[in-house]
């Protein structure tokens, strides 16, 4: 398995020169593309996005629309920029001092990279789950309630109690609801006050999803959420993603093409140098891709 992946990766890097130098061929492929605007009213709309790390361009002129209440998978070999692309959707790249973003990302028609964007609001609406589970070293309950508490939506403590504005009950409900949504509640309901680091890796990742859900986002970005997990935990996360797509817009980066085929509604293939090569319904990408290179990639041949 890992051999196969590394072969694909090597193949991908080998192809770099081919694609970037031969503009002719790239043009030819683009002409074969189906329309990447899959929805009339997209949740997220990306136009001519470029991301630079210092002088290096990690994302090249990517434009794509992400429809609401669906799962969009971003696949591609390592280093193709799919994680960078994902992080630019909720401006997590701002946290890297050398990163620079050009182009436009619109959330429900509002520019994300506008000068007046409220980062807190943006990240509340566009949540994120990371590759490695990263719960805080706090009790499970505090992990889930962390976001709402910090946003001042839950008042707790002595002062709140004295003022009669104690939201302990609301918090309890929120924690329970979020954990249930993340399919974790049954496993941890007896130990909500135990430290979250005592959970298994898969449970920790679902806790991170619950923590993300607790702030009630509209879009959930997931950066290879199952890559650090065993097959059973992976299966649980995949089921969860499919369920979440009924209420949320999910964008998921994955290395695993089978996973993308299983869970996503549409798939974007990033091949090399941060270029979006093809973006279409998942079925089309995996069964009848427009480009030969994408076909080679998804069938594991790569040329």
């Amino acid at each position, binding site marked *: 398995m890992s051999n196969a992946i590394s072969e694909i990766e090597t193949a991908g890097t080998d192809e770099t020169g081919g694609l970037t130098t031969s503009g002719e061929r790239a043009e030819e492929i683009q002409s074969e593309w189906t329309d990447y605007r899959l929805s009339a009213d997209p949740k997220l709309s990306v136009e001519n996005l470029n991301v630079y790390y210092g002088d290096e361009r990690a994302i090249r002129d990517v434009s794509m629309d992400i429809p609401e209440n669906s799962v969009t998978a971003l696949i591609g070999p390592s280093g193709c920029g799919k994680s960078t692309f994902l992080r630019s959707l909720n401006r997590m790249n701002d946290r890297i001092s050398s990163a620079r973003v050009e182009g436009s990302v619109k959330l429900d028609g509002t520019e994300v990279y506008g000068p007046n964007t409220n980062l*807190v609001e943006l990240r*509340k609406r566009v949540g994120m789950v990371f590759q490695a589970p990263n719960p805080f*070293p706090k009790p499970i309950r505090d992990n889930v309630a962390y976001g709402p508490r910090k*946003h001042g939506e839950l008042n707790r403590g002595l002062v709140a109690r004295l003022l009669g504005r104690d939201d302990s009950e609301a918090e309890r409900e929120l924690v329970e609801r979020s954990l249930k949504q993340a399919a974790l509640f049954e496993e941890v309901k007896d130990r909500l006050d135990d430290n979250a680091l005592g959970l298994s890796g898969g449970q920790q990742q679902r806790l*991170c999803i619950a*923590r*993300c859900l607790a702030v009630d986002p509209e879009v959930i970005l997931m950066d290879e959420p199952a890559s650090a997990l065993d097959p059973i935990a992976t299966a649980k996360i995949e089921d969860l993603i499919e369920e979440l797509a009924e209420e949320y817009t999910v964008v998921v980066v994955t290395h695993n093409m089978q996973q993308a085929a299983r869970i996503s509604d549409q798939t974007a293939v990033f091949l090399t140098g941060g270029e979006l090569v093809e973006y279409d319904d998942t079925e089309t990408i995996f069964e009848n891709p427009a480009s030969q290179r994408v076909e080679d990639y998804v069938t594991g041949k790569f040329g």
Partner: protein
Amino acid sequence: MSEAYVHDRETALVSDELGAYDRALDGAIAVAALNFVLGLATLVGALGPETSGVALTDVMLAVSAAGVGGVGLVAACAVLNVVEIPSRRIRGLGVGLVGGVILLTVFSTVPGVDMQTLMGVVLLFDGLAVGFAGIASRAGLVDTEPNASAGALAGLLFGAIGFVLGIALNGIVFGGTLPVVVVGTGLAVMLAAATVLPREDLGSTLPVALVVSLLGLVVASSVVDPGWSSIPAEPMNGGLTGSVVVSLFVMLGSLLAGWAAAKSRARYGARGRQYGSFLVIYLNAAMTVVVMVSIVAFVTVRGLDYTVHGFTIGALSGLVVLSPFLVAALAYARRPAGAADWHGGVRETVRVLPLAVVGAVAALLVSLVVRGEPFVHQFTYTIMENRQERTLETALTVTPELTVGTLVVATPSVVLFAYFFRKYGSLAGVGRTFDRQPTVQRALGGSVAATVVLAVVLLLGGSQPFGLGLGGTLGFGAVVITSAAACVLSLVAVSGLLAGNGSRARRARHNAQFVKVGLFGALGLLAGAVVLQPTTGTTPSIAGLDLLPASAILATVAGLSVAALATMARRATGTSDAEQRLTRRLLAEEIRLGLAGATGFVVLLAGHVATTDAPFSVAGLTLSDGGTLSWPMVLFSSIPLGAEPGGILPAVVGTVWIVVGASLFAIPLGVGAAVFLTEYAERGRFTALVEITTNALWSTPSVVFGLFGAAFLLPRLGDTPSLMAAMITLGFMLLPLVLITAREAIKSVPNEYRDASAALGVNKWETVRSVVLPAAVPGVITGVILGVGRIAGETAPLILVLGVGDAGQPVDVLGGFRLMASPPFVYNEALLEASKALPKQVWAVIAAGVSGSPSKGWSTALLLLTVVLSFYLIGILTRRHFRRKLDYE
């Protein structure tokens, strides 16, 4: 870790069957350890090698009481399954220790030998035991697995020991008449050959037996006595005195004997080497501890006399004071020691050590009560009176009285109640709820509230509230009724456990809510009654027994019964693993509940005695308002002892305030700067500059800080040396260390936490406050601990900025605050006064020879050590608390 696994490993490493051979060797190891401690005691001067007769008997009786008590308490806990001790070696060592101290006591009493002979004979015995073990093994009497040879390393070691011993013996026995090199080399070659040439069992025992027996003979036959000196020639300075040589010989001999006995105990071969080398490695590590302990012990021995002048305590009071330590030691011992390997065995020993110490002290105190004689430690010290030395006699006394003061009872009880209650955590989560629980709880709350309201009304309205002449009667009736109700409720707790179906464990689990309501309900009711009682001035009694304390005692017994039953039930475990765990957890909670209740009732008892001023006795034990504690002189500011001010309290208070003030100044500043530098500032020239500056500041000599304080701060703070100036100066010294360690700690917080928080839309400051800083707290505390250790003992700056201070009066910082209408609004006179401080006083008394005698200097040093170690302890406990919150345990 399952039980079976533990025993498998244990039997795999040490033979399962315990024969006379093993027992004897366990005994030899234990006695060697004991002898090592005695040697250490003579080295630091706690006990003279020439001690003999009644004095030695007394010492040995105390040692045996302590040994039996310590081992006994650990054994009792092991039998009760409270503390798990699966290791056979540790059990064997325990038995050996008890046997050893009893034998030593008998031996020191019957033939009437002195300390030196005693230690020598024990060495001789150990040497012979090791020798016999080797011979028995070589003769095939026991089943062992020795290698062909003990190895070159052991040979080298014994060669070296032989060389040194040869030279030493030449000097001691023959007065240095033989050629040094010949004797040394001869003995070295002989021992090395005896180690390497024969089979391992002989090779690793016979040389040891030879050396240890020789040392034993030299010590026991008083060839070297305390008057002996290694330097016969007058012009040479220095050299070893007899008592030091005796101590060193005893310690070296004990080490060797213990090592060889341990090797034999593990049947030689690979296992034997393992055991032997582990012993040596751990002893090696323990030696660093010994250095620390020696310093503390030495200062203690020198300073204790002056410090405890006039200290008297009743044995029973002592036992009560011991109880929080018992709980702490138990909690420590109960934590699992990890894998059952050799390290596990050592860890087990370390875990039960505090428990053994508590048991030892308790046994000593109990033995006083049983014998009915007070323990009086007489000593003398000198003070300066009109520049003349004068000797004072005083004593540390422990009386066998059965009286306890309310304060002595109440303080540990409050501590325990808080501890158990905190440990117990959520009261709601235990067991099932019974049908009428909410009603009962409401009724309970109502009646407690009613009692308190009644008390307040009676207090305000006197005996005729609202003009009704019912006050006294009403109050009397209320006290009687609440006490009786409390009795009934507390009995419910126990009856619920006794009457029910299934095993005790199941019953305890089922009736948890009864227990809860019973215990805490009774506690609340009695609390109300205690509040009510003094206002009505009534003490209702039944058959000569005060009703209120009687019901408190009844409830205490009930609470303790719950705890005892639960402990017993803990052993009757369920079938499946999960069930067993659940039962254990629930029962552990019940134990805490019971103990929390019991200690709460004890507090009430003390409260009753304190409010009514009436002593209360039951079964010969008296709880009185006064009690049997008189504080040591050191805790007084001044005691008229001739011209010398006696107390050391002003210096203690001064040091504590300086450390607190410096910490309050440096910690927020340092941590704040660290947060700014790591989380906000860009890495660049500025942060690099700050880094260099802090490091430079950290290595600046303290006297420079002192000069800066004197030249810069003093003119700006009233122009006199003051406490405030000292706080700020030492705060400057503390600042760089806090900054450096806090930065490192914050840097080491994983970036994932920051990303996760940012992705939730939480801003930077909130992230730092609620994720980064909590994760960095243990590291920050480590820095503070180190820093506080440094500044608490700092002398040079204090000489410059603190001034002389009033010897007769400690600074009253808390009482010195004054509010004013004009700026600076808050003014504290005490902070701007000169004060005493411990390190400065040590310097002044011992080095400069002003204001006091050397005894006072040593006592000051002892207290300085105590203060610094207390700050350490607080720091370490805090760090552990936060670490545990971060870990998933």
